[in-house]
C-alpha cells in the first residue's frame, strides 16, 4: 500500500474500531431529534406545500449528522494524536502534506456518509421519503462532508488542547448547523434572519441536499453546489498552506 493508502486505512480503522461510539451513537441521537421535533412541530412549522414536516425534517437531520460527524472525525483524530504524541508516527515517514490532507479528509467523508446513510435508513422506518434526484443527494453529501472534514483538520491543527476543539465545535460548527435550515425553511423566517442565513455556507449544503429528495428548494441547487465547491476550494487552500508550513505540527 502507498503511504497515503495506509494513512487513509488507519483513519478508517480508527473510527470503525469504535463504531458504537462513532456511528451508532450519532444515528440514535439523530433519530431522537426526528421523533421529538416531528411530534412537536408537525402542523406548526410552515415548509413546502406538498411536503409534510416530518419528511422535510429527515434530509436536514441526515445532512446535519453527515456534517457533524465529518468534522468530529478529522478534528478528534488529529487532536488525540497531537496530545498523546503519536502524531510523530505520521510525521517521521515520507508522507507529503497532500497525502496527509487527502487521507484525513477522505476518512471524514466516509465517516460522514456512513453515519448519514445509517440515519436515513433508520428514518425510512418512520417517514416516507421521495428520492427525486439521487445524484444531487450524493454530490451534496460528499461536498458537505469534505468541507467539514477540512474544517476539522484546521481545528485539529490549530488546537493544542481538547477543549479548544470542543470550543470550535460549540461556537462555530453548532451555530452554523442549527441556523442553516435543518429544522425549518428559511422562508418561514423574518426578512432579517432570512438575509443573514444566506451568508451561512451550511444553509446551501442543506438546501441543495434537500433538493435531491423533493425536487424543490429555496435556492437553485446549481448555485448551492457552486457555493459549496468554492468554500471547499478555499478551505483546502488554507489547510494545504498550513500543512506545507508545518504550522503547529513541525516546530
Amino acid at each position, binding site marked *: *500500500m502507498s503511504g497515503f493508502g495506509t494513512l487513509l486505512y488507519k483513519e478508517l480503522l480508527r473510527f470503525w474500531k469504535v463504531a458504537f461510539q462513532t456511528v451508532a451513537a450519532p444515528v440514535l441521537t439523530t433519530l431522537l431529534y426526528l421523533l421529538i421535533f416531528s411530534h412537536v412541530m408537525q402542523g406548526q412549522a410552515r415548509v413546502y406545500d406538498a411536503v409534510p414536516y416530518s419528511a422535510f425534517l429527515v434530509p436536514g437531520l441526515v445532512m446535519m449528522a453527515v456534517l457533524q460527524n465529518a468534522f468530529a472525525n478529522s478534528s478528534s483524530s488529529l487532536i488525540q494524536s497531537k496530545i498523546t504524541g503519536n502524531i510523530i508516527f505520521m510525521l517521521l515517514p515520507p508522507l507529503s502534506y497532500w497525502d496527509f490532507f487527502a487521507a484525513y479528509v477522505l476518512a471524514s467523508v466516509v465517516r460522514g456518509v456512513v453515519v448519514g446513510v445509517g440515519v436515513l435508513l433508520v428514518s425510512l422506518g418512520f417517514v416516507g421519503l421521495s428520492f427525486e434526484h439521487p445524484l444531487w443527494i450524493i454530490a451534496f453529501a460528499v461536498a458537505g462532508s469534505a468541507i467539514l472534514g477540512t474544517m476539522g483538520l484546521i481545528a485539529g491543527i490549530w488546537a493544542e488542547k481538547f477543549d479548544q476543539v470542543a470550543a470550535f465545535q460549540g461556537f462555530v460548527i453548532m451555530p452554523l448547523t442549527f441556523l442553516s435550515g435543518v429544522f425549518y425553511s428559511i422562508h418561514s423566517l423574518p426578512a432579517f434572519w432570512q438575509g443573514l442565513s444566506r451568508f451561512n455556507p451550511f444553509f446551501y449544503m442543506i438546501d441543495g441536499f434537500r433538493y435531491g429528495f423533493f425536487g424543490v428548494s429555496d435556492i437553485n441547487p446549481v448555485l448551492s453546489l457552486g457555493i459549496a465547491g468554492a468554500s471547499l476550494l478555499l478551505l483546502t487552500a488554507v489547510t494545504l498552506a498550513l500543512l506545507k508550513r508545518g504550522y503547529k505540527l513541525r*516546530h
Partner: protein
Amino acid sequence: MTPAIQIRQVHKRFGAVQALAGIDLEVAPGEFFGLLGPNGAGKTTLINILAGLARADSGSVRIMGHDVIADYRESRRALGVVPQELVFDPFFSVRETLHLQSGYFGLRHNDAWIDEVMHHLDLTGKADANMRSLSGGMKRRVLVAQALVHKPPVIVLDEPTAGVDVELRQGLWEFVRGLNRDGHTIVLTTHYLEEAETLCARIAMLKQGRIVALDTTNNLVNRLDNLYLKLRIAGAALPAALAARVRDSHDPVHTLCLRSYAEVEGVLAQVREAGARIEELELLQPDLEDVFVQIMNREERREVGAEALLPSSRLAIPGSPQR
C-alpha cells in the same frame, strides 16, 4: 564517502531561547556515535531537526546525502528515530502498529521483516495485544521496532533506556550493537555516561546549543591524565597538607586527585607521617563522567568570565524546551 549525517551551521531559536547556536557535525557511516549533554542542551531539538519534526532557522542537515527539507522523502527513508517519550496509539495492537508504520513508508510485503523485528525484540508473544495493555518496557520495544520497519541505514535513539529495567537495557544494547555490526549507523543520547562510554566510539558533548567537546571516547577519557587515590584511614585525620588534593571526602574515606602514579608514594608517606594508618586503598582511573563534569564546569567558568567582560551579553539561557 558520503557522511551518514552531515550538519552544517544549524541554528534554532524558540522565542527568546537559543536552542541551537551553530552546530557543525559529521557522523560517518557505520559509526556508533554518542550525543551527550545536560537537560536543555539541545540534543532532542537537534534530533527533531534531523527527523523533520522541527525545522532549523538556518543551516543545513543531510542524512545519507539527502537534504532533510528539499529531499525529505529520501532522507526520512534513510532515518529511523526512537523518540524519547513513550508514545503509542491506543487504537491498535502491536502488529497493527508495525504494519501501519511500514505502510507509511510505502512498503509492501514487509511481513517477514516485521516478524523478524518482533522476534528479536521479544514482542512476538504480544503481537496481537493492544498497545494500551503493554508495560512501559514493552512499549519502548515497540518504539524501537517502529523505527526499524523500513530498515533505515541511520538509527537515532533518544534516551532509549530512560526508566527501563536492567534486563531490558542489556537486551536492547545487545540488539543495537548487532545492528551496528550489520553496518547501521547509530546515534545515541543518554544520561547514563557508563553506557555511552562502553557503546560509543565517538562522542559529542552539547551545552546550551553548542558542541563543547567532540572526540573519540578514548581520547576524551584520556584527556584527564590524572588519577584518583581512594583511602580509608584510621588513627589520625588527613593531614592538612593534602587538603588541596581532596576531591571527595566522607571521613574516614577520602578520594584524592593525583597527577601521576609517581605521586602515590609521597602521598602515602605524608599520611603515615601524620600518624594515620591506611586500612583500605584503591586507585581509580577517571571515567567519562569525570570528563563530562569537567567539561561542563569549564564551560560554566568560561561563560561567567565572558559575562564579566561583557555585561550586556546574554550567554547563559537555562532551560531550553525539550521538544
